[in-house]
């Protein structure tokens, strides 16, 4: 299994590592520059502003560098050659583990690095409360942790974002097992997130969106309840399972197509 994982990683390392590096640089630069046009109170807010774009595009970044591999292995029949050598489930599991670790890294490293830069490297923010005492009191979700232990907040949030990233990647991975159109595979999760975001916003269920779970500061902190961060991921997992049931059980498609 270990050798399989190593083998799989060697196939993916170039796109994954380059994505991690590029995203980290972008996130760091944005987090340490974009905040200057805003009036803020805390250093971590600069991080939230700087990573706003990343929050929007993350389904692309976790899927595109990873999920192309399975498509091409199916397309050029490489998958069939692995059959005599390794069990199907073992091979696919190894592949998923590598993909999961990769997508975890793609999300975690840029976010956490840019948080460190926002907290310790860039110029400290002069709180707006001091310069302009008439503003309304600062409000934020998980306020205590956000204000007192920002590094822990950033670490935990990056961790949670990475977990969601792995889930989104799993949807792309599931698509890449069954669909023959690489464009749909690579953009499907992004479209899912956009449509889910939009339709839940229409239904006034903003607190249950995946995006809210991913970045809790997108809606007012009072609207967030104990279960609301878990609804979006649960919907995503349900959707993935439904896709799997449709392809594997209803349409009777197999991954290893001869």
């Amino acid at each position: 299994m270990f050798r399989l994982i190593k083998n799989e990683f060697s196939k993916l390392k170039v796109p994954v590592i380059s994505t991690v590096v590029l995203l980290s640089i972008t996130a760091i630069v944005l987090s340490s520059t974009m905040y200057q046009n805003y009036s803020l109170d805390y250093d971590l807010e600069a991080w939230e502003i700087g990573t706003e774009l990343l929050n929007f595009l993350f389904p692309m970044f976790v899927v595109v560098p990873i999920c192309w591999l399975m498509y091409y292995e199916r397309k050029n029949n490489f998958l069939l050659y692995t059959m005599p050598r390794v069990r199907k489930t073992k091979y696919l599991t190894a592949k998923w583990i590598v993909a999961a670790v990769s997508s975890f890294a793609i999300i975690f490293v840029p976010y956490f690095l840019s948080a460190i830069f926002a907290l310790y490297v860039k110029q400290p923010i002069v709180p707006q409360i001091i310069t302009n005492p008439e503003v309304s009191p600062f409000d934020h979700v998980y306020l205590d942790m956000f204000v007192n232990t920002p590094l822990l907040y950033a670490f935990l949030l990056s961790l949670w974002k990475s977990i969601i990233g792995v889930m989104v990647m799993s949807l792309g991975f599931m698509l890449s097992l069954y669909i023959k159109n690489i464009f749909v595979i690579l953009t499907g999760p992004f479209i899912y997130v956009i449509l889910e975001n939009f339709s839940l916003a229409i239904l006034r269920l903003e607190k249950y969106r995946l995006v809210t779970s991913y970045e809790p500061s997108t809606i007012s902190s009072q609207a967030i309840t104990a279960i609301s961060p878990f609804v979006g991921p649960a919907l995503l997992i349900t959707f993935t399972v439904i896709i799997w049931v449709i392809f594997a059980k209803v349409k009777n498609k197999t991954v290893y197509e001869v």
Partner: protein
Amino acid sequence: MNLLRKNLNGGVRGTLVGLFVVCFIFGLSARVGVEQPFIQHCLAVISDHYYLLYFMLPVFLLLCFFVIEDDNEAVILRHKTYFRYFVCKWLSLVVISFIFMVVQLLAIVISGIGLPMDSGWLIASGGTTEELFTVLSSIFASPALSFTAIAAYMFVGLCVTAMILMWIGHFLSKSWAIKIMISLYLLSAVSIKISFLWELPITVFNHIIILHHNLSSPHRLMITVVTSIVLVCVILWTVKKHWNRQLSFSKRQVRGITPYYCKELISRKNVTILGAIVVLMVVWKYLQNDGGINGEEWIIRLFAGHGTGTFHILSFTEMLLLNGAPIYLLAAFIEKVTTEHSAFITVRLKNRKDILVGILISALLFVLVYGIFLALIPIIGLSVIGLSIDTGTLALLGLSVGLKLIDIAVQALFIIVIYCLIGQITAGFIGLVAANILCIAPLAYLPFGLSSLSRINLPLIGVEGIASLYAILILLATSALLVGWLFASGYKRLPKN
């Protein structure tokens, strides 16, 4: 008689039961919160705008649709001439229309049981029926007379409608008959909301069936009667003399790869998705609507899109969905056809440009289909909300849809260009999303998403932005540039696989 028995088949009977139930519900809802005598209640139900236009008329069309197709030749032969067959069949439809009317009247009468039996006009001020009753009371002496007149008119109208539908069903193929029936219905449902259509002297189903739609202007009833009589004469004449001809729209045999691409791209599934996206947008704007706006403002909200120099996720998503829906389907289509493209196709094509031309033409048609949805569904939305549709609104809608179409064309060309350059349609899509995200920067002349009305200078709302003429010029120039490159050197890179 046999024809009648045959035509009263299961579908028709089921429809009649459904008609009774819904008509009864409408009748009960008309009683809620209103104090009026029995006859006036019946009058209110039978002239209820929503009931007539959005339920009764479609149900009647459906009912006719079950039976309009010609019977097989043996049945027609027994009537000796086609004309006699046509008349017999029409008579059976007259009986069905009669049953239809009886079912309605029964439901209305039952729904009104227990109301006081006054016979004079008693017009409550402020009610929804006030305006209509005022008009009716100026013409008819009593509500009972008015009710009888409306019901009789409706019965005659239904008979005429049935004849028109039979005529359409005989001279056109089934698929064309459905299309024409649906478009005639839409015209009758929409025309009442659009003032200039309403003023035109055209007669649609609602004029033929609904009496009070003819009372809006002095000549209206005359126009309806004359058109109907002329139409009936034409129908009888064509059925008598030219019954053996069929209007058929034979398709010209088209050669080359373009029709295959068109069939693949403009498939029923893709078109449904496009329609669903527009409906989703319209429903969203409908839910957002908090009242107090007119049609033009509503159109602006619908096509607002995203401005430049800011970033607001929800409106950006909205813009991406509205602009990107056809692009996404187009991209999936390009990926599919180029993956399946085999060397044999290349061999049979005379010119490499044919692939590019095929893709571009099918994409153009696809975008035009989207344009039809973008133009029609908001009009329906406006009429459902109850906003007036005047010329200003229509002009604005035309401008927005036109801009949107050129914008989408530019984005589609952009994605094709990137595909030619890099060879991955996904790269094209990512590039397109990135190009749209450039709106974070204050680039007023950014061609991607320029159809957003929040970037266009509209004197009506006072939005700052560039003039619509400049926007159109920018978009056209960009698309000319992209098309020029594609035909100059881009086509050599197709297909990639």
